[in-house]
């Protein structure tokens, strides 16, 4: 009975990692008051860029970097449209997803049917051989470690640095932040780029490690799940990590349960994270002081200097 626990945990880590990247990136972006609904598009473009470069140059490092750059590139378009041209953020984000899906299938057309060997896993003699904990803690690939690091990085940045304070201030009240001399546009653009790079990394993980091949639309809605996780996490990076693993865990455990012929309707299981999100939404909209505490007050509002 217990011999499947370890493989199940390893599978949960794989299933959760892309969500961690995308969700934590979006937490950062939304903290600055920007709502980018284009996560799915940035992820899928990251996936094809990483895969194409990985297959062409046979380098995992180059592949990962290109995935991040491609995600950031798409985010840059979003930034230009919403920050400089003041386009509606919701509409632009949706358009970005559609654009990303189209662009990725265009680039990916000649990569259908090719395979990538996958990412090398960390192996430290003795440590990786520790029963049970060894393969979980010391036997992952670089992107898994990077995803955990990104959570701590974003958390540290937002709550422990001066720049993080500025980002949050802009997210809460961009007019006030502007009036004391901060460039709202510049800060938001940087944050949007980082969020895009993180989404791109999430996509790279899909095409390099999770299922190392390319097929169109391979993100299959993970960008939207990440978006839901942000609300579920009430804009806290640590909780986004928790939410991603909860989501991945529920998905994998219900599959194992099916294999053991335990009948829990899979539809119920896979809708749990969404139900939790709705529940959290109900909670925070019931008590307005809580909303003020967490949700950035300027979320989704475009900034125009009023002078």
């Amino acid at each position, binding site marked *: 009975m217990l011999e499947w626990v370890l493989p199940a945990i390893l599978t949960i880590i794989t299933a959760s990692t892309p969500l961690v990247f995308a969700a934590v990136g979006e937490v950062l972006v939304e903290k600055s008051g920007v709502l980018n609904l284009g996560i799915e598009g940035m992820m899928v473009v990251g996936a094809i860029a990483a895969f194409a470069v990985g297959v062409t140059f046979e380098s995992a490092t180059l592949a990962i970097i290109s995935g991040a750059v491609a995600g950031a590139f798409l985010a840059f378009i979003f930034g230009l449209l919403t920050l400089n041209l003041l386009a509606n953020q919701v509409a632009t984000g949706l358009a970005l997803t559609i654009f990303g899906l189209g662009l990725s299938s265009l680039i990916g057309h000649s990569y259908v049917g090719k395979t990538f060997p996958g990412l090398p896993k960390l192996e430290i003699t003795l440590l990786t051989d520790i029963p049970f904990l060894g393969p979980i803690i010391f036997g992952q690939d670089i992107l898994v470690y990077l995803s955990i690091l990104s959570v701590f990085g974003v958390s540290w940045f937002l709550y422990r640095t001066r720049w993080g304070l500025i980002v949050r201030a802009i997210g809460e009240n961009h007019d006030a932040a502007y009036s004391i001399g901060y460039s709202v546009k510049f800060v938001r653009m940087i944050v949007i780029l980082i969020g895009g790079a993180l989404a791109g990394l999430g996509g790279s993980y899909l095409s390099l490690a999770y299922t190392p*091949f390319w097929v*169109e639309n391979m993100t299959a809605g993970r960008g939207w799940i990440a978006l839901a996780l942000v609300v579920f996490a009430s804009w806290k990076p640590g909780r986004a990590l928790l939410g991603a693993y909860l989501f991945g865990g529920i998905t994998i455990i219900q599959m194992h349960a099916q294999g053991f012929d335990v009948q829990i309707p*899979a539809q119920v299981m896979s809708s749990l994270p969404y139900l939790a999100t709705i529940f959290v939404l109900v909670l925070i909209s019931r008590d307005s002081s809580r909303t003020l505490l967490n949700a950035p007050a300027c979320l989704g509002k475009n900034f125009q200097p009023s002078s």
Partner: protein
Amino acid sequence: MKQMKSLFNLSIAGFVILAMGFFGAVKADPLKVGFIYIGPTGDHGWTYEHDQGRIAIEKSLGSKVKTTYVEKVPESADAARVLTKLASSGHKLIFTTSFGYMNPTLKVAKKFPNVKFEHATGYKRSKNVSTYSGRFYEGRHVAGLIAGKMTKNNVIGYVASFPIPEVIRGINATIIAARSVNPNVKIKIIWVYTWFDPGKEADAAKALIDQGADIIMQHTDSPAPMQVAEKRGKLAFGQASDMKAFGPKAQLTAIIDNWGPYYVQRTKDVMNGTWKSKDTWTGLKTGMVTMAPYNKSIPADVVAIAEKARKGIIDGSVHPFTGPIKNQAGKIVVKAGERASDGMLLGMNFYVEGVDSKYPAK
């Protein structure tokens, strides 16, 4: 406001270009054949194979035809809109290649009595709407025989999409065939409730292997389960397309949807004026279902068993659902010596004896 206006102009320009693409190429001579696809042509599965069928028409009939396809069409009002566009822009034969296009197809067909429609996997027909589908379970039978012979752990893992008759039929055909050559074989089923989500499909395959399966079968569209099997040193069967590239060692064979011959025939029928509304449900015999080359790792005696079944199905001496067949409760559903009727196959909503899992709750 200025920006709004320029954006508006831009979108108008976009529509004009699109419309030119649609109507600009109208010429009297070649027969225009249209296709609508549920997925992207690059899915390496269901839609990919339909597109191969479209390409087969072009290859076979050359300049006498002109084909158009629209991919990623949702099974909603959008389908009717796209169909209307195709029909009104001179397409005389239109293939609608997903079950969910059934009602939109019939609706649009009523408005365009001179256009012939071909709907895949549906059951509603009219004067200018035909239906067609493949007997994929015949391929499952051949695969099931190989699986029963090749498994060492006696566990076949099955990545299933939705509990609809088409998928249930595949599971039943597999286990009946596998148990006929190996009475100890069991089947483990994981429902992923999607046709296409590479990540989820891979997760299901991993879970099945972790629980002891050494042969993976799938009824989903992406090559992810095949790739997982290859990575873990297990065996698998390709689905819809030849997935050898993703599992050169793992793929024993693949059940291939081969629409080309039918598509070419129906196009010729329209050209010759002999097209009639009918239902086509064929498999290995007509080549609508074919098997990929057997992996060299399969022993000769197993290949012989598989080939005997394949040829038997083609000449009619073998039927994958030949009685006695019992359901899970042990009640006989097909009497000894009899064959399951097409009606029973099309509406199959029970597991046969040998499947240990409970039938998925509705």
